[in-house]
């Protein structure tokens, strides 16, 4: 003989909800790297400021001559929730470019800037990043990149939702 006494069962219900939001992302297309173009140094050296804009505006200091090339700010695409505010983190330290020679000649890049506006308008925006190139006196001629031996490697830009 069985009894139900002591085995009484009770139930309760609860609702569950989950919101899946669009993750923020940042990408850079091939060919959208930062390019200071072609420059000529002098006996005193100097700097070249590359603006964070769509046309690659360069501002040389005394002692530096702009010589053409294809200057451009680095261009990234940030996607996420339309209208959502976000934060950007640029490199806090200098990056080094090298000519890749057996005994590498180098230059540093610092003072990073961007045309960050704070909001992912329309769910996808274009972000430009500029910086300042520091050129030595009588800097050795050559093509300098962060990827060459003696360079510090690529620079990193980080974004995050606020």
């Amino acid at each position, binding site marked *: 003989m069985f009894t139900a006494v002591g085995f009484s069962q009770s139930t309760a219900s609860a609702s569950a909800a989950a919101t899946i939001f669009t*993750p*923020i*992302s*940042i*990408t*850079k297309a091939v060919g*959208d*790297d*930062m*390019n*200071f*173009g*072609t*420059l*000529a*140094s*002098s*006996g005193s050296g100097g700097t*070249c400021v590359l603006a964070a804009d769509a046309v690659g505006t360069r501002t040389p200091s005394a002692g530096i*001559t702009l*010589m053409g*090339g294809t200057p451009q700010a*680095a261009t*990234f695409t940030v996607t996420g929730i339309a209208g959502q505010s976000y934060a950007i983190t640029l490199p806090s330290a200098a*990056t080094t*470019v090298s000519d890749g020679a057996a005994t590498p000649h180098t*230059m540093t*890049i610092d003072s990073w800037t961007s045309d960050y506006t704070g909001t992912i308008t329309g769910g996808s925006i274009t972000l430009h*990043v500029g*910086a300042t*190139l520091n*050129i030595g006196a*009588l*800097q*050795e*001629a*050559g*093509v*300098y*990149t*962060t*990827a060459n031996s003696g360079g510090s490697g*690529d*620079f*990193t*830009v*980080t*974004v*995050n*939702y606020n």
Partner: protein
Amino acid sequence: MKRLLRNYLSLLILFMCAVADVFPQTSATGHVIAEIIPVFTATETSQLNFGRFAPGPEGGKIILNPQGSVSVLGSVYKGTGMHNAACFYVTGDQDASFSITLPDKPVILKHLNSPKTMMLTNGSQYRRLAPVQAAFRTDLRQYMLGQH
């Protein structure tokens, strides 16, 4: 039961904090490229030299062309001795174009032991496509002789 619920909520909060802290952040990397070309230099290898001459009573001009030839106008008489145009040795990026700018104002030459002067004028400018390490002569070519 309450204990289970409390543990469950704690785990949920921890999970949400972890997700909020890590998940949304994302990064991208980029190269930096710059090209440096050789410094442009111009070094004088030969000074502008009109050589020896004798002024006549009316004064005149000595014209020294970029090829180093001298001719005279007015009462000036060529003497013997060396004369040559100034020569500069130019270095720069191969096949780069460049320009030169000559003095746009007269240059006054002063006599060492007297207040007398002579005036150097008519510099002009020309442009050419220059291979690297091209040498060229100036186009400073006219010399005006004052009254003596």
